[in-house]
């Protein structure tokens, strides 16, 4: 297999350790006087977007930033709970850039690019420095220095955190930097604006068409370069831990205009979410992975056991993770824990009214911590109830906010009955294909953060998403964008009366008119739900050839029905959330088809992609490095037509091994 000639990753030569340092020192620069005349458009204000916008503005570029939310501060990076990794080695436990790099590649099941991941690990330390300087209140020890925890089953403590709200604190840090530039007039901020197309002039991306979501007005914006920092597309499944507004539209428009889509089928399903409670469910809530540190996961040994948890005796419980993976037990990586839960529920061992849940039980932890407390306090002859109460107090201190959240959502008290959990779509490793400079296959169009495909391979490790978003925005794009913009200093701002802008706006307008004039019978929401069901059933945690083929047909049918029967209320020239939704659902439908196509092409199981045909006798994922050690980059060629390009992955610094957690 050879890399397609259309995919030049532009990885610098030389040894892995010096690629980035050397490249950074040789990448062309734009002089300050020219920067003032260069305009950069940034879509999305999450970690990647906000950090890129503020940094580029500090450098002197004229920046326009867009977000669909009412404030840049509400981007969904805010919801990340656990933490952010950095190879600081503050704990003196043997961490290093190489170890972080290695763990990330291995965790991604050997489907990520070495050079990008190494660079990510290299800049990870700078991110922490920058955030602390910007006032992010990370957790600290009594000596006043930063605290670390281990996360996602790594052997070192490299995760920095701010209680269970690390994403919030990092985003607010990046947001305040962005607002500082807005105040200084170097960033023009467009809130409640949604990008609805990119504008191509002479085969380069030169601007966007955006809709002002308040007035409905379509706006044309010119930019020498456009950065998509628009997050992931997990909402293609309808139910996910993403925000309601998270969408693929910006990335999808770029894809239709020539940006290749990388590894669209790589989806991360997070094992510890609160299960669906009924058809009304609009989104799923994640419970931090840290809960698996102390909780034990089990289902009844008997199928369709309707007894309440406390009436199922110990020897009739199946602690299936401990049984299947004695070495890692309840702490196996996300993809493995998720699949195991699905396997049990599908086989009829699920619990709760829906039977699509497993127990996460803290009883053993109450006992263990309680006994510890009894010893610590020197209490003799403590009753069992007393031990449990003391144990509960310890657990409350560690996980109180999560337990409260669970109670709030389910109405059940997790201190009394075991929690019920089920996997949910959480993150998409796939995204727009980008080269080492983070540029897509469209010149002048970049993708940062979750919107690109680059660093997590087929599975993302905990606390790595925040790291990647900020790395891309703070420390990568400010350098790499020079490689392109240094050649654009002679390009004067192009008038938005240019025919390409007029044409792009017309296409957007026509589509909006179309959506509003179908006047069918079903709401966009209803189509979204249907799409989600197809995707979850046939392109979710486990996939097979037949299911995927069916899914493609079903999605095509759904698309046809959508475009002839959708009912969009309201008008084009007003605040109209229904229209926004319809626009997004239409794009999700097209993406869904491509995801199934990609999953069908990849005849192996790796990371978050599990093909039932490719598993070991024990039901573990079976990777095919001979046939599939490549990045799938899909080129859009018209309705339901794509061409696959492959980028071969070469591992020069890492020994490929089978992941095993037994």
């Amino acid at each position: 297999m050879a890399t397609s000639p259309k995919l030049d990753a532009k990885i610098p030569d030389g040894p892995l350790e010096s690629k980035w340092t050397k490249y950074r020192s040789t990448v062309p620069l734009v002089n300050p006087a020219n920067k003032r005349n260069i305009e950069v458009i940034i879509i999305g204000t999450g970690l990647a977007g906000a950090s890129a916008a503020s940094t580029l503005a500090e450098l002197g570029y004229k920046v326009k930033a867009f977000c669909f939310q009412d404030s840049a501060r509400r981007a969904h990076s805010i919801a990340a709970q656990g933490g952010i990794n950095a190879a600081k080695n503050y704990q003196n436990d043997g961490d290093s850039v190489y170890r972080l790099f290695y763990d990330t590649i291995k965790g991604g099941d050997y489907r990520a690019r070495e050079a990008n991941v190494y660079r990510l690990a290299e800049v990870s330390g700078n991110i922490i420095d920058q955030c602390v300087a910007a006032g992010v209140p990370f957790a600290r020890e009594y000596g006043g220095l930063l605290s670390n925890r281990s996360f996602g089953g790594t052997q070192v403590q490299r995760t920095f955190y701010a209680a269970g709200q690390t994403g919030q604190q990092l985003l607010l840090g990046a947001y305040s930097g962005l607002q500082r530039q807005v105040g200084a007039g170097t960033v023009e901020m467009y809130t409640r604006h949604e990008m609805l197309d990119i504008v191509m002039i002479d085969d380069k991306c030169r601007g966007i068409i955006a809709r002002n979501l308040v007035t409905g007005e379509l706006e044309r914006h010119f930019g020498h370069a456009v950065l998509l920092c628009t997050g992931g597309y997990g909402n293609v499944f309808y139910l996910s831990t993403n925000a309601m507004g998270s969408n693929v539209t910006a990335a999808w428009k770029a894809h239709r205009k020539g940006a290749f889509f990388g590894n669209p089928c790589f989806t991360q399903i997070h094992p510890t979410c609160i299960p669906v409670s009924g058809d009304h469910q609009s989104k799923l809530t994640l419970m931090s992975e840290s809960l698996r540190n102390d909780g034990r996961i089990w289902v009844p040994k008997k199928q369709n056991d309707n007894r309440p948890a406390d009436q199922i005796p110990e020897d009739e419980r199946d602690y299936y993770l401990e049984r299947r993976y004695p070495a890692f037990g309840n702490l196996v990586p996300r993809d493995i824990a998720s699949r195991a839960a699905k396997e049990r529920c599908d086989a009829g061992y699920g619990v709760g009214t829906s039977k699509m849940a497993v127990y996460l039980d803290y009883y053993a932890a109450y006992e263990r911590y309680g006994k510890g407390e009894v010893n610590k306090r020197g209490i003799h002859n403590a009753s069992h109830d007393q031990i449990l109460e003391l144990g509960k107090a310890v657990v409350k201190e560690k996980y109180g906010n999560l337990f409260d959240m669970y109670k709030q959502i389910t109405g059940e008290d997790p201190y009394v009955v075991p929690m019920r959990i089920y996997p949910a779509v959480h993150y998409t490793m796939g995204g727009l294909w980008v080269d080492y400079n983070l540029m897509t296959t469209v010149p002048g169009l970049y993708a940062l953060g979750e919107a690109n495909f680059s660093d997590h391979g087929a599975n993302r490790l905990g606390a790595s998403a925040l790291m990647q978003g900020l790395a891309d925005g703070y420390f990568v794009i400010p350098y790499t964008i020079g490689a392109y913009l240094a050649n654009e200093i002679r390009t004067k701002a192009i008038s938005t009366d240019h025919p390409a802008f007029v044409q792009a706006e017309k296409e957007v307008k026509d589509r909006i008119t179309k959506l509003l004039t179908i006047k069918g019978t079903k709401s966009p929401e209803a189509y979204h739900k249907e799409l989600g069901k197809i995707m979850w059933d046939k392109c979710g945690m486990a996939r097979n050839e037949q299911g995927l083929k069916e899914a493609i047909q079903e999605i095509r049918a759904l698309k046809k029905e959508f475009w002839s029967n959708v009912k969009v209320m309201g008008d084009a020239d007003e605040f109209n959330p229904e229209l926004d939704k319809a626009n997004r659902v239409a794009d999700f439908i097209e993406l869904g088809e491509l995801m199934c196509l990609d999953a069908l092409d990849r005849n192996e199981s790796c990371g978050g992609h599990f093909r039932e045909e490719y598993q070991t006798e024990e039901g573990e994922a079976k990777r095919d490095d001979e046939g599939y050690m490549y990045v799938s980059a899909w080129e859009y060629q018209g309705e339901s037509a794509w061409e696959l390009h492959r980028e071969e992955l070469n591992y020069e610094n890492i020994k490929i091994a089978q992941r095993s957690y037994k």
Partner: protein
Amino acid sequence: MEGNMNLTLQVWRQKNSRTEGRMESYKLSGISEDMSFLEMFDVLNEQLIVEGKEPVAFDHDCREGICGACSMYINGRPHGPLQGVTTCQLHMRSFKDGDTIVVEPWRAQAFPVIKDLVTDRGSFDRIISAGGFISVNTGNAQDANSIPVPKENADASFMAAACIGCGACVAACKNASAMLFTSAKISQLALLPQGQAESAARAKKMIAQMDEEGFGACTNTGACAAECPKGISMENIARMNREYFAAEMGTKE
């Protein structure tokens, strides 16, 4: 029909900022107590679409209590009857079958209504732009552990930084004052050594902007802190006042 609750909703409807609004009444049935308050609104909107009426516009995004988008004034209280909970995390089990629920937008001069229950909270962004940051360009930072921060201060700073910018404090305050919001950011940065260099300028500029936006003054009623879904404390307002008075009287300008 998933549940068996029947409800009457009285909802503020307003086409846009230029038109007058009014309360409208809707009957809903089959509501499940496991639904979140916003999911109940999803049901209402589906029902309205079927009837060919315009659905109710409301702000919402993460639906897990952290983005700060959702903002409903429910039965006279921002985010409804529970303490420490955003609208999206309020569930229908907090209501009874047969209840009438009155839902209004945040009401403040500085939060004009865009449509129905959606308001424009851009004033908060402008307050942050005025000084709610530490002026550190990317790349300037020294090693993160070179500045120790006493744990107590770091924790207090974090508690203030937990603000989600939803505006419930403004909605709850009889004066529509933004003191709790503004003070949370000033406190967060004032409690950290990194924030000291600009603390005087920050306090002056942020408060000047807050006044310019048309928020009211503080009467120390404490309604803001009582309704804050993130438990931001009034101590922050006191700290902001100290910062401000020191800044006005202790600087050259």
